[in-house]
């Protein structure tokens, strides 16, 4: 319909910028004249409050020295409001050795880690399931080539998880198991994650969802003895996830965000 011409600072930088700007500078901002009087956005095009969001997703682990995980999963999110949501997520898939899993003994050439050696290191995650609380303080829009507008939101994520992973073996057990052609047993570890999430809204019913999460859990590493027993080592598994969200119902709920 009608174009709006305005000098707008990108909302993407809002969180950091707002925190960094001195009080007086913020007070002088054009947008502050109505601060506290009227909400920043009215008639929000893409609303989440009171809607269920289902997200089939793909996840990829980052920065893991031994195993790269390629997971697929499903996430269900219930939005209490535009700002607050809870989710449940399950993801599973393949864990493949990385190219950097190389052993370089002294005075010898480097060679790829053997199976027995890989059994002795953590990181072979089989499945992750967890709950999540999301806080989405930022809703913004981007000017795409001065032609189109892309709406997005930013979220902070945190929640508890159950991480199913392969047991980390002692060297003797690992060698024996590898020789026998067996596989380590799986173990469960309770942990948690924190992360950042971004939704790029495609329509009222669809959104691209990208998240970056750090899963934290503890595993026993038998090769690393402390006080006569295997050391309990804290693991950080960094994952990036990309999913396509479908919102139910397909349209914004009436009355959840109308009048300012």
């Amino acid at each position: 319909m009608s174009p709006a011409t305005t000098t707008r600072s990108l909302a993407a930088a809002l969180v950091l910028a707002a925190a960094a700007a001195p009080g007086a500078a913020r007070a002088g901002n054009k947008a502050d004249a109505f601060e506290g009087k009227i909400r920043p956005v009215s008639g929000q095009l893409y609303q989440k409050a009171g809607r269920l969001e289902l997200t089939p997703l793909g996840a990829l682990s980052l920065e893991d020295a031994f195993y790269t995980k390629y997971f697929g999963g499903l996430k269900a999110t219930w939005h209490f409001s535009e700002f607050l949501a809870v989710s449940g997520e399950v993801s599973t898939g393949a864990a493949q050795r990385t190219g950097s899993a190389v052993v370089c003994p002294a005075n010898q050439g480097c060679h790829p880690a053997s199976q027995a050696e890989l059994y002795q290191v953590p990181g072979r995650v089989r499945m992750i399931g967890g709950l999540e609380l999301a806080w989405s303080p930022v809703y913004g829009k981007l000017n795409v080539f001065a032609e189109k507008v892309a709406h997005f939101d930013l979220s902070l994520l945190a929640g508890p998880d159950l991480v199913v992973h392969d047991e980390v073996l002692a060297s003797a057990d690992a060698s024996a198991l590898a020789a026998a052609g067996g596989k380590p047993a799986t173990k469960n570890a309770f942990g948690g994650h924190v992360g950042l999430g971004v939704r790029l809204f495609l329509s009222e019913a669809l959104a691209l969802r990208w998240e970056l999460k750090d899963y934290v859990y503890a595993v026993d590493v038998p090769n690393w003895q402390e006080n006569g027993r295997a050391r309990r080592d804290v693991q950080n598994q960094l994952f990036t996830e990309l999913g396509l969200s479908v919102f139910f119902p397909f349209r914004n709920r009436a009355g959840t965000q109308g009048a300012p």
Partner: protein
Amino acid sequence: MSRTALAGLVLSLAVALPAPASAQLGLDLTAPEPPPKKKEEPKKAPAKPAPAPEKAKPREQKPGLELTPLDLGGKSDVRPRLDAAKKLLDQKKHEEAAAALDAVLREPGLADGHDEARYLLVKALALQGLHYSALTYLDEILERGPSRTKYFHSALEWLFYVGKRLGNEQPILSRVARHARDGVPPAYQDRFHFLLAKYEFERGRALEEAGRAEEATAAWREARRLAGLVRREAGAGAAVSSTGEAPVEDAGDVYARAQFTDGLALYALKEEQAATEKFKEVVRLTNPKKGRTGDPELRELAFLQLARIHYQNKQNRYAVFYYGKMPWGGAQWLEGLWEASYAHYRVGEHEKALGNLLTLQSAYFQDEYYPESWVLKAIVYYENCRYPEARLVLSEFSRRYEAVYDELVAITSKPAAASSFLELSASPRVKKLAETDQTIKRLGETAAEIDAEVDRGLGRRDAAFRASPLGKALQERLAKEKAALVTEAGLRARGKLEYERDQLRAMLAQALRISIEVSRQEREALEGSLAAGSQVEVVKDLRWTHAVSDEHLYWPYEGEFWRDELGTYSYTLTKGCKDRPPRSSAR
């Protein structure tokens, strides 16, 4: 709210003065008392107070008789009690001091000390933040005049002190006017003259409304004279108490405000050119880079006045310029945006006019009362041969405002006491409409402040204080004060709503006429189609671009309102009349 009568708005803006002026609270339409004579030496006034009458009359003594023990007791008792109360004040035990002073006032035998006790009680109440309570006692002191109380001038200083702390200066305006003849502390001369000027200006308006044009003119001339007495230095810093009693404070740029009042008076006297110069002077004075006391609200009002004067004189480009100078989001910004729509319309900038209306009709301002914005929108669409859109806008206007009209008719035809008119009769929507009258709004604000003083100022003090004679007396005084305000607000609200009812009726009729005209045009197009044997297009594609200046980015509007975009919208007219009417020749 007639677009053809924006001139009236210039005057009505007076009610939106930063320190507002109105015909509220005992505006006296009789001839004013002569102003304080110049030969007075106000500096000496506080230093040489007239003795209190009680002290001025020496007791007659008969030979051989001593003073009665009762008299002696009365005189000898009050001093220690006043000293004790002063000590409590010095120790900032204001509540205890107030109770002690009230006790003194309640004893007829201590009449000698009542004058001082009353004055100290004002201080104790004001310093506790009980400003309206203090005002009621200040009235008692001021009513005695300088000849009957030595605290008169100090009380005037406290009047200014209290007035500065109220939501608006209205409650002290009439008090200042009432006691003008009795002189004023030198440090407050400028504020005093400014307030008097404002009072006279308001008085002039009230007289004009009453049909007493000559007296109104005299009042405005007096307002000009008083505004001219305000010195240019007033506004560069804080007033200094001449009696050393009331705490000093920054009074703001009194000179600039006086100049503004002068401009309003000039406009009222139909000296538009001189008024324009005055408002420009206010703009210069309030320039934040000039180093005077900042007053952004006054600056905004000066721009608005300049815009209105230019609009009224069909200098629409100038009007648009000045409307554009009003700070984004300011108190009068929305009003300016609305009025600017008409200026844009006059010069054929229909896109900008519609863009402004988009802001005005956004969800943010859905409670604001701008019915005429719908009529203007329909007219713009109509003039661009966008008949379906015009019809849609008119239909929406009728849907929204016929109900409001019915409500206004019902309210204004219902007999109700003035004191309960607003409370009993009006829905929140109509209440808000009534409060578009700045005087009613300020009366409401003052009443709310009194409520707050009762609820929080008194309510949060301990039960013993509330139950004390002073606590009860204060509640009674405040209730009386509020009742007077509510009654006045009710009276004015009835008049305001009757006026709005009539205006809305006229607008609904105008909308109907436009609707009929739209139908006629559509019928003619259809007849043309029938005659031609094919569809006749009344609109053509217009050339347009979404290119914007280097300072801006183009953001397509998609139905979502962003706070920082308000006021920047520009409608893209992609289609318009085949034979587009020539644009207005107005400047």
